[in-house]
């Protein structure tokens, strides 16, 4: 099942890409699994995700804790640093 990944702020800069569409492997069940999987995709990913606990994740525009499963109907997953708006 293809899913769109979007990256923001220094996560985007370190990965070197703003968005991409990937096929989620069977081994990826939770948000934490996804971060593990992505970290192995190359140097930029490793730099972006070296401290996975600071990475915030949104599934289809909703903040989601790392221990949650990624539903089969999820279409867009966003990875970004803690927010600094306001």
């Amino acid at each position, binding site marked *: 099942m293809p899913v769109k990944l979007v990256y923001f702020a220094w996560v985007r800069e370190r990965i070197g890409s703003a968005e991409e569409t990937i096929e989620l492997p069977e081994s990826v069940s939770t948000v934490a699994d996804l971060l593990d999987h992505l970290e192995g995709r190359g140097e930029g990913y490793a730099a972006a995700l070296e401290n996975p606990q600071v990475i915030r994740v949104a599934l289809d525009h909703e903040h989601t804790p790392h221990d949650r499963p990624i539903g089969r109907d999820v279409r867009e997953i966003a990875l970004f*640093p803690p927010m*600094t708006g306001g």
Partner: protein
Amino acid sequence: MAGAITPVVRVQRADFDMDTECAALAPGGDTGALVTFTGLCRDEDGTLGALELEHYPGMAEAEMTRIANEAIERWPLTALAAIHRTGRILPGENIVLVIAGSAHRGAAFEAASFVMDFLKSRAPFWKKEHRTDGSEGDWVEAKDGDTAAMRRW
């Protein structure tokens, strides 16, 4: 309140002004208190050239709307708006505007403060600094105090 109000939520490059936004809300005859919060770009003692505001289109509006609706559930509001700018913002310029109206001042102050605390920690915006010395600045780091401010509610 008979019938919950609908919040005004906007993400935009353009500046805003308070009087226009308050008038547009047309908060109605039961409004006795209107609180506005404006967040401005500080000059950091002259070292900051500009802030670059990045956001997550779609989610930014969705999250701001969730925060606004939570405030509307918690306080008897007659008007609520949250407007956030994006793009390049110079020192002294506006970044964010929150407006809360209610019959009495306590609810208006609390709702505006609540929305700001949640906006800071939950709305997907990020600030990058550009320095006046020409060097590329850093991404602004989130403050522990902001999370604490959110948790008090």
